[in-house]
C-alpha cells in the first residue's frame, strides 16, 4: 500500500492553519522572553541563585534541569564581528558509519572519517585526509559479555572518538608548523554523547575523549563545535528561571516551562550579520568530568549570514580555555563567519569534511558485495534475512514494471 497523499493533503492544510494560529501567541511569548533577557542582562548573581535552586530541585527529585548559566558577559549584549586574520588555518573532520544490521549477510560495522585542512590566504589547495576506514567484525567488537549486539549508539561513540582523533592528529601538527592560528571545527556538540553506552563504559570513553581535548588545548588549537539550526533551549531555560520568583522554583514549576515552544535562536533573533550573543555555560548533568578537566562547555549563538534580511543562527560550543583567551575566541568567531561566507551559511570545511566521510548507499552495497564474494570463497553461504529479501522484492521489484 502506498501513502495516500490525498489523505495527507487535508492534514497538511490543517497543519498550515495551526502554525499560523499559533504564531501570535509565540510572538507574545518571544517578546516576554526577550524583555526578561534584557531585564536580567546584568544581574548574574540573581540568576546564579536561581540556578542553584533549580539544581537542588533536580538533586532531590528525579528530574534533570538543563539550562545555561551566565558568564562575565551581559546576557543581552551583542558582540560584533571581529577582524579575521588574513592567514588562518581551519581544520574540520567528520565521520560516517555502516551500522551493524542483523538482516544483512553478516554482522559487521564500519567507520569512515574525512578531514580537510583549509589555509585561508595561502593560495594553496586545501589538503584532504582520509584515514583508513575501519571494519569491525570480531566477536569482541560486535557483542558485549552478555552476547548482546553492539548498539547504534555505541557505534556512534566510536565514530565521534575517531572524528576527534583525526583533529588531534592533525591540529597540533599544523599548529607547530604554520605561523597562523589553527582552528579545529567539529560538526555538532563538543561533548561525547555516552548516554547509549553501558554505564561501565561511559566514564572510560569520556576520559578517552577528554584526553584528546587535552592534546588540542596543549597545542593551542582553537576548538569549536558548530551546531546548525539548533533546537536547543538552554538560554530560554535560564530566562524561564528569571521569570519565576526564587521561591517558586520547584520541580512542578520547572516541568512547566512557559517558553517550551520557543527556541534559543528565536530568542537571539536580534543578532545582525556576523554578530554573536553573550557566552553562556552549559548546565547539565554529566558534564562534571569536562569541568574538572578544565573543558567546561560554553556556547554562544552566532548569525553567520551576511544578509540582514535572512539571518542564519548557529550555536557554537567552545571549551573554557578558549573563552579565557579573548584573541582565540575572536579568531574562532571570525573564522566561522568567514567559512560560512563561502557557502552562504554553513562552514565550507564542514560541508567538505562530510563529503569526504559520507558512505553512500552505493558504497555500502559495494562493501556488501565484496563481503559476499569473500564469504563464498571461504566456503560460507552469505544470505540476507527473509525479511530483508521480501522488503527488497516489494520495494524495488515494482520499479521493473513502471512505464
Amino acid at each position, binding site marked *: 500500500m502506498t501513502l495516500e497523499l490525498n489523505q495527507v493533503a487535508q492534514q497538511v492544510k490543517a497543519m498550515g492553519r495551526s502554525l499560523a494560529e499559533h504564531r501570535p501567541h509565540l510572538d507574545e511569548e518571544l517578546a516576554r522572553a526577550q524583555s526578561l533577557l534584557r531585564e536580567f542582562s546584568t544581574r548574574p548573581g540573581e540568576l546564579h541563585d536561581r540556578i542553584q535552586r533549580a539544581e537542588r530541585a533536580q538533586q532531590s527529585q528525579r528530574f534533570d534541569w538543563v539550562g545555561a548559566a551566565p558568564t562575565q558577559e551581559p546576557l543581552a549584549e551583542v558582540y560584533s564581528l571581529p577582524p579575521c586574520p588574513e592567514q588562518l588555518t581551519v581544520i574540520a573532520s567528520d565521520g560516517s558509519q555502516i551500522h551493524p544490521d542483523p538482516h544483512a549477510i553478516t554482522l559487521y560495522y564500519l567507520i569512515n572519517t574525512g578531514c580537510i585542512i583549509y589555509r585561508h590566504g595561502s593560495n594553496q589547495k*586545501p589538503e584532504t585526509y582520509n584515514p583508513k576506514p575501519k571494519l569491525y567484525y570480531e566477536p569482541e567488537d560486535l557483542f558485549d559479555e552478555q552476547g548482546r549486539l553492539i548498539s547504534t549508539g555505541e557505534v556512534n561513540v566510536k565514530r565521534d572518538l575517531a572524528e576527534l582523533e583525526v583533529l588531534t592528529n592533525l591540529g597540533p601538527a599544523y599548529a607547530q608548523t604554520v605561523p597562523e592560528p589553527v582552528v579545529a571545527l567539529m560538526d555538532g556538540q563538543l561533548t561525547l554523547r555516552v548516554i547509549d553506552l553501558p554505564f561501565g563504559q561511559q566514564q572510560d570513553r569520556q576520559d578517552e575523549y577528554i584526553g584528546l581535548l587535552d592534546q588540542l588545548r596543549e597545542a593551542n588549537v582553537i576548538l569549536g563545535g558548530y551546531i546548525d539550526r539548533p533546537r536547543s533551549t538552554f538560554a530560554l531555560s535560564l530566562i524561564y528561571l528569571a521569570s519565576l520568583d526564587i521561591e517558586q522554583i520547584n520541580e512542578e514549576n520547572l516541568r512547566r516551562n512557559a517558553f517550551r515552544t520557543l527556541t534559543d535562536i528565536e530568542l537571539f533573533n536580534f543578532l545582525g550579520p556576523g554578530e554573536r550573543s553573550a557566552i553562556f555555560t552549559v548546565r547539565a548533568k554529566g558534564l562534571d568530568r569536562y569541568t574538572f578537566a578544565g573543558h567546561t562547555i560554553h556556547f554562544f549563538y552566532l548569525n553567520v549570514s551576511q544578509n540582514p534580511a535572512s539571518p542564519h543562527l548557529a550555536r557554537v560550543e567552545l571549551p573554557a580555555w578558549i573563552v579565557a583567551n579573548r584573541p582565540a575566541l575572536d579568531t574562532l568567531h571570525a573564522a566561522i563567519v568567514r567559512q560560512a561566507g*563561502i557557502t552562504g551559511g554553513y562552514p*565550507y570545511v564542514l560541508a567538505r569534511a562530510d563529503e569526504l566521510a559520507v558512505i553512500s548507499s552505493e558504497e555500502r552495497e559495494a562493501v556488501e558485495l565484496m563481503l559476499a564474494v569473500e564469504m563464498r570463497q571461504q566456503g560460507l553461504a552469505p544470505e540476507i534475512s527473509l525479511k530483508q529479501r521480501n522488503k527488497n522484492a516489494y520495494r524495488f521489484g515494482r520499479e521493473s514494471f513502471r512505464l
Partner: protein
Amino acid sequence: MTTALPIGWVLRASTVGFTVGCRVLQPSVPQFGDLVKVPVSDGMSVFGLIYNVQVQDDPAVRQLILVGEMEPEAVLDQRENRLVPIEISVLVVGYQIDKQIFQGLPPQPPLSLDVLILGSDADIRAFTKNLDYFRLVLNSPQIPGDEVLVTHLRRAAEVQPPETQRQFLLNAGRELARLLNFDLVRLDNILRRIRPMS
C-alpha cells in the same frame, strides 16, 4: 600527442559513438577534435573524434557561484580535490584489428569502463592515410561536424612529416571537394580554414 595514459572511461556507448567520463586532474585533458582510441578486445581498438567536452553540473559549485564569495583556496579545492566530472562525447570513425585500420563503424561498440587513450602521432598518421572517414563526420547529424573536421585536420597535418604536410592538406581538400560539391558555401568555409600556409 604521444601519451598512452588513460584519460577516461567509457560511460555509455553505441556503434556510432560513445561518452567517456574523466576527471579534471587527468594528465592531459583531451581536446575538441582529438583522435582518440579505445582498446576494446583482443587486438581490436575503436577510433573516434571528440566532438564535445562537457563539464557536468554540480550542486556544490552552483551554490558557490550563487554566493559569489570565491576564495582562491575554495576554487582550487573544487577543481583539484573534488571529483568534478567531465564528459567527453566521441564520434566513432573507424577501428583497428591487429595492424589493419578500417574506416567506418566497428562490429561492436566499446563497453562500459573501457579505457580511452589519446591517439599517438603514429596512430594519427596511420589513421589519416585514408580519408574515407570524412563522410561519417560530415554526415553525422547533431554534431558540429565541420568544426570537428577542421580542428582535427589542422592537428593531423602537424604530425605529418614536414615534407608531406602540404600534400596531406591538399589531399584532404580534394576529398572534401568531392564530398561537398553540392554545397560550395560549406566547402569553402572548411577549405579556407585548412588551407596550407604558403
